[in-house]
């Protein structure tokens, strides 16, 4: 669930002898925000410390994209993690640094092997225009469609709306779940269900193949799969000092790229 978890992880840097000339109190980089970004941020922080021993101490909390944005705008954390793009109501004075991308997969119950939905079909299904599987070509199931989506405040919902739905509105009779895991569970237990989840949550579900392309790391990396969203690290004003070095390292180094590529889509 979306409980705020301060200190979900504290990466303690090993004390390393630092030459007196550069001696300064070790900086602490604190982060909060998206639960989707958190696992990646933790791995990156560990990798950064391996590359730059003793450069900083990390503290990673969660809470959801909006929490991250609000925290960083108020100066409570150095970096706010967000899995949604900037929006109009965000507080001013913050800078969005893109760090990776993540695939969002359309999934159905494993007993319903739909393979290949066009954007128009996805929009028709999720907006409630098409309400029966018999109206969906390729569906191996008939009967009413149970649409499962995320709550309004979720970053994944925001990305789904932008990437897949465009201006179409998600049906208001859709069940709104509070996390990726709950959506996956709902689809797993209901043969009529369809929903969307982050790539990491697709186990045991049928990939509905958006625009005919399988949803996996390879197609997302190659750009074939289009349902891809951004992960952001948000800073208050331009990133400075150690935070700047950390974000630069994520965006530019090969090591960070390798870490990201274990489950997400690197930027370059």
């Amino acid at each position, binding site marked *: 669930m*979306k409980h705020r978890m301060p200190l979900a992880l504290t990466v303690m840097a090993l004390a390393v002898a630092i030459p007196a000339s550069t001696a300064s109190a070790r900086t602490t980089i604190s982060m909060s925000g998206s639960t989707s970004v958190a696992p990646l941020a933790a791995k990156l922080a560990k990798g950064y410390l391996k590359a730059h021993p003793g450069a900083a101490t990390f503290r990673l909390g969660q*809470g959801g994209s909006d929490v991250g944005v609000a925290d960083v705008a108020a100066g409570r954390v150095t970096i706010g993690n967000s899995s949604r793009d900037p929006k*109009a109501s965000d507080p001013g004075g913050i800078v969005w640094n893109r760090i990776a991308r993540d695939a969002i997969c359309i999934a159905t119950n494993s007993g319903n092997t739909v393979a290949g939905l066009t954007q128009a079909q996805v929009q028709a299904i999720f907006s409630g225009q098409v309400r029966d599987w018999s109206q969906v070509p390729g569906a191996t199931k008939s009967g009413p469609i149970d649409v499962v989506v995320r709550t*309004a405040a979720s970053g994944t919902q925001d990305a789904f709306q932008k990437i897949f739905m465009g201006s179409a509105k998600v049906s208001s*009779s*859709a*069940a709104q779940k509070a996390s990726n895991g*709950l959506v996956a569970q709902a689809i797993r*237990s209901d043969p009529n269900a369809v929903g969307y989840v982050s790539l990491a949550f697709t186990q045991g579900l049928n990939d509905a193949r958006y625009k005919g392309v399988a949803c996996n790391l390879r197609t997302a990396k190659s750009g074939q799969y289009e349902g891809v969203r951004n992960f952001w690290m948000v800073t208050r004003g331009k990133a400075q000092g150690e935070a700047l070095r950390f974000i630069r390292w994520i965006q530019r180094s090969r090591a960070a790229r390798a870490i990201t590529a274990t489950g997400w889509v690197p930027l370059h």
Partner: protein
Amino acid sequence: MAGPATPASAPNRSDKRAELALGPLSSVVLVLIAGMVVFVLAKAWPSFANNGLAWFGGGGNVDDQLLEIFNSPANPDAYEYTIHAWPLLYATALVTGGAVIVGLAFALFAAIFIVEFAPERLRAVLEPVVRLLAAVPSVIYGLIGILVLVPFVGNHLISQGRKESVAYVVQLSGNSLIVAVVVLTVMITPIMIALIVDALRAVPGSWTEGAHALGANRWRVVWTIAVRAARPAIVGACVLATARALGEAIMLSMVSGSVGFAPNPLDGLTFFVEPMRPLAATIVDNAEGLSVKPLGQTLYAFAAVLLVSSLMLSLGAWAVRQPMKRYGVRP
């Protein structure tokens, strides 16, 4: 209270000390509660002020309204506040009421059985088990609900035809009123049993013995003497159970259906398998958007309604219990 005549000064002094220490402590609790109520109401005020009484009414789709509020523009003057929370209030009342009524029936008979009829060896097992059940965290019930009951109801109790009959209004997937009520009942019944057992035990033996002596059978004695005398405690048990049911969030967020729909009794049996989402579950589900100011204030408004309802509940129970107390026992 030691009278002034007794010169035993040592216990007297420690009494004083306890009084001095506990008095402020309990006052702190009072201040905390008052502070909490004021804080929540203050936070919630913009939501109530912008909607007036329509806040409690129906109209439009409550999920769409929450989305609009979440997507408010940055300008505080243009914040969106419109919400008609009736489906959520109605769902809360349905689930809570259903669970407490069913739970009370079960709890009353179970307690009577434990106190009056169960063989000693069975009782020795039953009572600790009941008390243990009362302490199980709600998320565990939620897991059982979502992994076992929801799929069962969705795949076996809801026919294709039933699903199709309401497909254009609401999705029937197993997340439903009936599952929510069943799981909630299982959650709150043990507390009620434990409290009612204590109350039945506290009925003076001379009262029941008197009835036995007059030739009444066991059942009659229990029903007419013990249960009647225990009424204030039974009301108390219901209040406690209702309060727990009202505030239950995680479990209901998992099993109740995650959509702000108001189940319609006119739908016949379908009514029981229709999804809905009570207030507390709505707060949990939308907690991610707390930092969006108007949505945060709306969630605080939900919290305020829950808080005020449980306060009213306590007051109401107090009033109901007054006339019962004359012949009642209080454990």
